[in-house]
C-alpha cells in the first residue's frame, strides 16, 4: 500500500507529457482489459465508484480485479475496428499480459462505458456522440491534471492535450486512434477532436517534418516559403542532379576509351577539391570547381557540400596514402546523415 502511494506521488511529479507517454503504454494494456471489462462493467464500475475517493484503495482493487480479468483475456478478442488505423487494431487486439499499473485505474473506468462507443467507432457513424463525450473528457482531463487524482486524465491525454476532466464516459474514440502508435498529436482547445481530424493532423505533422528535413538538404529552400514553393525547389534540384549525372555519364562515355583509372589514384585530390574547396596540391584542378554549370548553387560551383561543414577543413598534403585512407579523411568532413 505504501509503495503504491509513493509511486503515485512520484508519478505526479513527472511532467504532463511524460505522464502521457507513460499512460499510453498503460493504455495499451488497459484496452485489452476494457473489452473484457465491458462484460463485467457494472461490477467494476461499482468497485471504482466505491473507492472513488480513496485513490489508493481504488488502485489496489482495480489492480486485483484487472488481474482477474486479464487472465480471462484471450486472443479471441478483437475489436475489429476495420479502421485504417492499424495501431488501433494492434493495441486492441494485443494479447500481452495486462499488467495493469495502478495509475490507469480511472482510465479503466472510463473505458467501461466506452463499449457502445467503441462499436460506434467501428462503424464511424456515431462520431457526433463521440465528439461530445470527448469534449467532456477533455474538460475533465484538465481538471484531473490539476488535481491529485490525475488518473482519470491519463487515458485521454494521449488523445488531446486540451483541457479536461475525465468524465466517466470519455470517448475513447480518439484514444483508440493511432495515438497509441506513439504519435502524439496535440489538439488545441477548440479544435476538432474527432478521429478523422486527429488522424489527419498526425499525418500532416509527419509530412511537414519530412518537408523540413528536405528543406535542409536542398539548398536554397530556406528562402522559399510554403509547401508548393519548396516542392518546386526540390523538384528542380532533383532534376538538376539527374541531368548532371546524365551529363557526366555522357562525358564518361566519350572518355571511356581512354579510361585509365587506377583506384589508387582516383583520389584524394579530386575529392578534396570538392569537399573542402581548397587548392589542390600538384594539380590545377580548381577548374573543376566551376566546371559543371548545371547547379544553381553558390559560386563554389560544386555541390554545396563544403558549406555543410564549415568547421572542418583538411590539409592538402601529397597523397601518399591509399585511396581508402584519403577518402576517409575526406568523407568525415561532410556531415551527411541519412536521417529520416
Amino acid at each position: 500500500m505504501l509503495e503504491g502511494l509513493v509511486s503515485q506521488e512520484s508519478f505526479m511529479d513527472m511532467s504532463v507529457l511524460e505522464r502521457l507517454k507513460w499512460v499510453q503504454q498503460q493504455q495499451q494494456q488497459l484496452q485489452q482489459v476494457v473489452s473484457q471489462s465491458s462484460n463485467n462493467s457494472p461490477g467494476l464500475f461499482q468497485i471504482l465508484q466505491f473507492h472513488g475517493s480513496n485513490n489508493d484503495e481504488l488502485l489496489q482493487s482495480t489492480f486485483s480485479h484487472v488481474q482477474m480479468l486479464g487472465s480471462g483475456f484471450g486472443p479471441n478478442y478483437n475489436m475489429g475496428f476495420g479502421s485504417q488505423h492499424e495501431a488501433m487494431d494492434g493495441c486492441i487486439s494485443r494479447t500481452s499480459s495486462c499488467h495493469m499499473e495502478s495509475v490507469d485505474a480511472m482510465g479503466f473506468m472510463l473505458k467501461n462505458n466506452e463499449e457502445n462507443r467503441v462499436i460506434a467507432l467501428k462503424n464511424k457513424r456515431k462520431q457526433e456522440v463521440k465528439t461530445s463525450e470527448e469534449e467532456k473528457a477533455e474538460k475533465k482531463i484538465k481538471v484531473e491534471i490539476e488535481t491529485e487524482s490525475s488518473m482519470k486524465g491519463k487515458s485521454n491525454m494521449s488523445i488531446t492535450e486540451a483541457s479536461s476532466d475525465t468524465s466517466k464516459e470519455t470517448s475513447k474514440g480518439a484514444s483508440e486512434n493511432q495515438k497509441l502508435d506513439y504519435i502524439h498529436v496535440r489538439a488545441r482547445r477548440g479544435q476538432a477532436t474527432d478521429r478523422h481530424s486527429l488522424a489527419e493532423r498526425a499525418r500532416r505533422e509527419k509530412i511537414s517534418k519530412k518537408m523540413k528535413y528536405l528543406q535542409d538538404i536542398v539548398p536554397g529552400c530556406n528562402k522559399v516559403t510554403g509547401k508548393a514553393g519548396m516542392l518546386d525547389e526540390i523538384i528542380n534540384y532533383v532534376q538538376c542532379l539527374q541531368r548532371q549525372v546524365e551529363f557526366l555519364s555522357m562525358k564518361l562515355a566519350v572518355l571511356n576509351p581512354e579510361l585509365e583509372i587506377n583506384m589508387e589514384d582516383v583520389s584524394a585530390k579530386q575529392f578534396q577539391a570538392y569537399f573542402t574547396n581548397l587548392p589542390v596540391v600538384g594539380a590545377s584542378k580548381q577548374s573543376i570547381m566551376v566546371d559543371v554549370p548545371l547547379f544553381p548553387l553558390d559560386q563554389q560551383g560544386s555541390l554545396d557540400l563544403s558549406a555543410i561543414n564549415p568547421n572542418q577543413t583538411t590539409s592538402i598534403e601529397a597523397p601518399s596514402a591509399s585511396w581508402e585512407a584519403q577518402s576517409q579523411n575526406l568523407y568525415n568532413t561532410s556531415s551527411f546523415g541519412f536521417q529520416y
Partner: protein
Amino acid sequence: MERQIINKKKRVFSLEPNKNPSAVFTRKYTRHLVPALKKLNMNKNSSQTNQQTVKHEVDMALALSAQEFAWSRFLLQKLSSSKNPTTTTSSSSNRIRILERSGKEGGDEDGEIEKKLKELQKLLPGGEEMSVEEMLSEIGNYIKCLELQTIALKSIVQETT
C-alpha cells in the same frame, strides 16, 4: 564517427570510416563503377553506342551502392528488366510543366501541391508505387545519393582527362 574541429594543419581521420554513410556509399559506388567501365572498355566494339551502356552502368552502380533504400530496389528492377533505363528522359518536359504551373498562382492550392508531389514521385525511381509519406523520406536519401554520385563521377571524369 567522431568529428573533430580541425585547424588547417591537421588531417582528420574518421575512427570508424565504415559508419559514415556518405563514405560508404561513395566507396561502394566507385568500386562498382570503375571496374564495370573498364570491362566495358575492354569488351566493347567501337561501333557500339557507348552512351546507353555507360548510363546503364552508372545507374547500376547507384542502385547497388544504396541497397538499403526502397528506390534503389526499384531501380535495380528496372535496370535488370531493361537494358535501357530511362530515369531522366522526361526531366525537361517536367521542368516546363512546372514553370507553367507556377505561373498561374493562387489557383487550386492543394491541387497544386498534389500535382507537384506527383511530379516528384515520377522523378524518384519507384516513386509512383509508394505512398506520399514514404516517397518524401525516400526522396531525401535519393538526393543525397545523387549528390555523392555526381561527386564520384566528376572525379572519375577528371581523372581521365
